[in-house]
């Protein structure tokens, strides 16, 4: 069952990358050449519902987005840890099940802490 991959199995991914990049570059250049170019000062302003724009968009935003990003990193690593376990699930058997459940239990504690502290409330 063990599928042994050699490096050449990843070659098509590289081909797809080249094809996609080629398409993107050609399209971008084509649209650049074909489209009309009549630039006026007003046209190049950033849009703000028709009124003159106030300042720019380099403004700090809510720390909540940042918190979500941190929690995402943590849970993402957790999910990644589960993949080698899931692949071997049938062989690891009950021991593996208990091992992963205790791992998940610890993380669930953290998850409940997050919920209790209201870190994910958006109201």
């Amino acid at each position, binding site marked *: 069952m063990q599928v042994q991959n050699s490096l050449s199995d990843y070659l098509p991914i590289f081909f797809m990358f080249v094809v996609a990049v080629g398409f993107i570059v050609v399209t971008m250049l084509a649209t650049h050449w074909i489209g009309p170019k009549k630039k006026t000062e007003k046209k190049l302003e950033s849009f703000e519902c028709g009124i003159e724009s106030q300042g720019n968009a*380099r403004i700090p935003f809510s720390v909540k987005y940042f918190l979500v990003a941190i929690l995402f990193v943590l849970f993402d690593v957790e999910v990644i840890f589960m993949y080698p376990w899931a692949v071997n699930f049938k062989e690891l058997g009950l021991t593996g099940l208990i091992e992963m459940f205790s791992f998940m239990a610890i993380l669930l504690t*953290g998850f409940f802490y997050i919920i209790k502290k209201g870190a994910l409330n958006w109201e």
Partner: protein
Amino acid sequence: MITQYLFYFLSFVAIFSALLVVFSKNPVHSVLYLIITFFSIAGHYFLLNAQFLAAVHIIVYAGAIMVLFLYVIMMLNLNKETEPHKSTMSKFAAIIAGGLMMLSLVAVLRGAEVNQMKASVNNNIGLTQNLGKVLFNEYILPFEVSAILFLAAMVGAVYLGKKQLD
């Protein structure tokens, strides 16, 4: 033979884009170059047949941590006039920290034996299945401890974040 050329190519890309990370003025450009660096390092893992590690490198570093970096950079005020001036003190501290890092890296590389590394190439330990077997049999304790580490990180993040909100 081809793998050797690939190795040199990837190393070149990794080092070149790592230098660009340091030298580019716009921090968002730095992030993009850092992503390229991560990709070339993932390529190195592929050359070593460490497929799981390569995938994890892309998913966690390039896909998750760099998103966090982008958020941080976007949160900082990037207006030219408000850019904070770095004090001489912090520059000095950065030089010392960087120097220590380099020193320890050099020390580690000097101690490493080349033959030892060669032996580990071309086996299948890096495949997801084999890695899982090792991780969940021999290294189960560090694995469970890492869960506690995650817990600590969660609590820390929420604590700091809540402090900002209130």
